[in-house]
């Protein structure tokens, strides 16, 4: 068998999908697409609703506290400022990463080589995102004792705050960090190696 024979077999009708096969693949794809769309919309909607609700509540309380509720004296309770700044620091860091990626890989559709390089950079950005989130969670756990101290000093909290602040929140941080480091090692690092190996194939010639 020579290469012409291979080409001839390649061009035979056996190497083309039947109309029934095409239709089946299409129907399965449409079902898959609808499922993915519903999932994305639901996730984005839930995250947005939760963030909007929490931010709105905090801002409203700072600007005009409801009657009966204690006002916030920022000279004595300034610990909440860095605490609430943490999600924004994370958000800004992620926005910067996203912008840098878009700038450096603006022409990622030019060739597969360029697309793979862009994917590798995306993987790097995702790894940095994990590190940023991890660092922010650790900082939040370290900031909590200060906030607890300030709240107790102004008489807004008693002993009931100790368990959530020193057990629940640090416990949650540890669980999230363990999950994130497992995902980092089991998913992100192997993907990085896979993409680097692919890029290497382009460079090796």
């Amino acid at each position, binding site marked *: *068998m*020579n*290469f012409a*024979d*291979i*080409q001839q*077999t*390649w061009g*035979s009708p*056996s*190497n*083309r*999908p*039947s109309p029934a*096969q*095409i239709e089946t*693949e*299409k129907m*399965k*794809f449409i079902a*898959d*697409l609808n499922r*993915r769309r519903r999932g994305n919309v639901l996730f984005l909607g839930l995250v947005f609703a939760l963030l909007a609700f929490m931010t709105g509540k905090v801002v409203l309380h700072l600007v005009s506290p409801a009657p009966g509720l204690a006002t916030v004296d920022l000279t004595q309770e300034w610990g909440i400022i860095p605490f609430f700044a943490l999600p924004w620091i994370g958000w800004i860091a992620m926005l910067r990463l996203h912008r840098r990626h878009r700038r450096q890989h603006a022409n990622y*559709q*030019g*060739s*597969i*080589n*360029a*697309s*793979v390089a862009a*994917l590798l950079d995306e993987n790097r950005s995702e790894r940095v995102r994990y590190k940023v989130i991890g660092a922010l969670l650790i900082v939040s756990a370290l900031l909590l004792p200060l906030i607890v101290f300030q709240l107790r000093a102004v008489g807004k909290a008693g002993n009931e705050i100790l368990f959530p602040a020193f057990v629940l929140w640090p416990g949650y941080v540890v669980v999230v960090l363990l999950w994130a480091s497992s995902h980092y090692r089991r*998913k992100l690092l*192997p*993907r990085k190696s*896979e*993409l680097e190996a*692919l890029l290497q*194939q*382009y460079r090796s*010639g």
Partner: protein
Amino acid sequence: MTIHEQNARFEEWFAQHAAVLHHVANGFADGTDRHDLMQELLLAMWRAVPAFRQAAQPSTFIFRVAHNAALTWKRSRKNYRERVERFEHLAGRETHVPPASDSRENETLQLIYAQIRQFAPVDRSLILLHLDGVGYAEMAAIHGLTESNVGVRLNRLKHKLTHAMKGLAHELR
């Protein structure tokens, strides 16, 4: 571009270029993995529709999108599939779909695909493009390589594939 326009163009492209996707899916995966990859290729093509510029050839664009999706296809799905297959095997269910015809031609085709799947991913993509009649210049543009590099690689790959198929054809007889 509205969603209806996107869907209409996607259907038109799929009807015209289904064979290309079929070749890429078979060249990069087999068994039930093949179905996962095919769905991934369709998704990549559907997502890429709005990015298509009329100045370009749809076929070149589809080749690039499909081969890009196959090359960067996430292996994690494969692991999931392997687990499903193992479970189905244990449960005694048939998962392997036999080819529609058991003709000699079909058997040879399966061997060609099996051989192509042995190549490194980028080489796999190059030989598939070559067999689908894509020229060196177009291949170079799709992959971001030089034409001479494509030529050198393809000569080596054609030789490798022919040599392997000669041995297998002998065994078939």
